[in-house]
């Protein structure tokens, strides 16, 4: 990577934020957050409410200023710039469309503020309306269009000035399920067609997995893990990342030997298997935790496999069935089995069964 390339995109450099209010204890919303977002990336900040993801987004937009650290855009520090001085536009959770203006005037607002020539504004507005498929609504008032249409106008308004970054603050949360699915596809298409970097904030792990190029999982004001959806799902760095995204089993094990990429460990039943090590995390031999996704474990007959347990519950989901087990050490474990045709082995509640954790399935995680 050349020096020039490395300066491109958004760099969040050891950023912290403390909110202080008179008569209340200080609240630390963000703690030493460092993220680098590449140009033309669909990047998601994922975490539960109160994890600091919206605060981080508001700092990138300029509505809040970092207490510590720097935010750099293409190499230039923008931490203290006002919102109107940043080539960054936002799609607000509530859309925040101007109710006294028409669809057209909402979309042209940013361009007018940038003093673009009239002809160029008209051309851009026409193009934006086509891009979000709202051409017929050009002269409507905001109150005269539906929620889904308002969403599209909010997108067009934020995209019209062709910002370097488009920030999206849970923009799909107000839509019903069907419209939300449509907009997820629509957003990916818009990002692809415009070539703008999208920074998307959500608490919905499925939304994050399906849409993002990369995800930053956040909790309690800190970044827990950054990686591609597949990285984060298959190789979670710690207990939070593993449990927040998808369903997972935690098994307490004895770590025998460990390298930078793999660890040898002893399962509760005494069998020895190998587990992957997430990037950049150090482990030492002794008590450790591994994660095994329910669909990665296999249900086998009693005495076979490398874990033993009793079936406590069976939940049928149509496409697959979840078997809830109690292991010998009283911990619980879930195996998810696809309901393929002609499955011969079907244990009942109370049956003794074995679980097979195949090679390369288990992952060590930080507690």
């Amino acid at each position, binding site marked *: 990577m050349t020096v020039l390339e490395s300066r491109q995109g958004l760099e969040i450099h050891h950023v912290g934020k403390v909110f202080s209010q008179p008569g209340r204890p200080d609240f630390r919303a963000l703690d030493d957050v460092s993220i680098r977002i590449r140009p033309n990336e669909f990047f998601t900040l994922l975490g539960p409410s109160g994890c600091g993801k919206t605060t981080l987004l508001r700092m990138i937009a*300029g*509505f809040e200023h970092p207490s510590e650290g720097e935010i750099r855009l293409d190499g230039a520090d923008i931490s203290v710039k006002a919102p109107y001085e940043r080539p960054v536009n936002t799609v607000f959770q509530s859309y925040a469309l*101007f109710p*006294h203006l028409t669809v057209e005037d909402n979309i042209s607002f*940013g361009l007018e503020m*940038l003093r673009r020539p009239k002809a160029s504004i008209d051309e851009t507005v026409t193009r934006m309306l086509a891009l979000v498929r709202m051409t017929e609504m050009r002269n409507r008032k905001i109150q005269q269009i539906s929620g889904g249409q308002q969403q599209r106008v909010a997108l067009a308004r*934020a995209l019209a000035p062709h910002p370097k970054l488009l920030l999206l603050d849970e923009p799909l949360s107000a839509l019903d399920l069907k419209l939300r699915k449509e907009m997820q596809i629509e957003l990916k298409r818009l990002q692809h067609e415009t070539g703008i970097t999208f920074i998307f904030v959500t608490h919905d792990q499925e939304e994050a997995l399906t849409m993002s190029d990369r995800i930053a999982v956040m909790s309690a004001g800190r970044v827990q893990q950054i990686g591609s959806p597949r990285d984060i799902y298959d190789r979670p760095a710690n207990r939070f990342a593993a449990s927040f995204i998808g369903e997972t089993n935690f098994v307490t094990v004895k770590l025998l030997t460990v390298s930078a990429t793999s660890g040898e460990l002893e399962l509760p039943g005494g069998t020895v298997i190998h587990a992957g090590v997430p990037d950049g995390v150090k482990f030492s031999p002794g008590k450790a935790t591994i994660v095994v996704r329910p669909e990665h474990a296999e249900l086998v007959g009693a005495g076979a496999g490398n874990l033993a347990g009793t079936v406590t519950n069976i939940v049928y989901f149509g496409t697959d069935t979840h078997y809830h087990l109690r292991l010998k050490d009283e911990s619980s474990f879930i195996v998810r089995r696809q309901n393929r045709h002609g499955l011969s082995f079907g244990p009942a509640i109370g049956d003794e069964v074995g679980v097979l954790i195949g090679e390369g399935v288990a992952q060590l995680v930080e507690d």
Partner: protein
Amino acid sequence: MAKDRSTDMRYQPGFGPLAMICLAVLYAPILVLVAFAFNANASVAQWTGFSTKWFATALFNESFHAAALNTMLISVSATIIATMAATAAALGTTRVKAWRGQTAAFMTINLPLMVPEIITAVSALSFFALLGQVFNINLGIGNLILAHSVFCIPFAYMPIRARLEDMDFTLDQAAADLYATPWMTFRRVTLPLLMPGIASGIALAFIVSFDDFTITQLVAGPGQTTLPIYIWTQVRRPITPELNAMCTILLSISILFISLSVLIGQKRR
């Protein structure tokens, strides 16, 4: 939806008659006043026939004209000054981060509404006396404009503040996000959305200034007679329906402005 009659006030025994009595007490005297403005003879107590001649007399009365001009000058000036100050105050008390003195500031702005008007009047009188004697400053009718502006501020402030509190602050942020400087945000987003509140404020401030008697009576210098003061001076002479006609004209203007204020307030909700 089924209405529960047991808790609906309108179905309580005696509600109807009580409501009628209240309305009568409130409006009967005003109706009588307005009715006798149309009396054909010179009595305000004995009805003889319908006529609009007293309105003509009132409208061609030159003292009435002079008083009306003074009133318009004072009310319009005071309304403009008070509304601008109230808009600034409303922005300053809502579009800021929470701070310690916020409630105190709100109370201070609204306190003049609670202070007995005679006290405001006497303090205004002594203030202008001080200004005249110690600093030798006399603003003429400006004294009245200043006094009116001050007591109109809280009236203009209330609807403007209410409107601002209803408005979504995210809209201002959206404007800033779309490259609008604070001034452009105010001009293109905040102000247009605030207009119904400001219009209500203007109407309220105007009517309060237009109707004022106590403060004007104490502060007004020679020749600075306003309509309420002029009418009051007429009361001490033998009363004719001309006075009723003047009152009816004043009343009509008041009703017009209050209606405008209510109508504008309801629009765009």
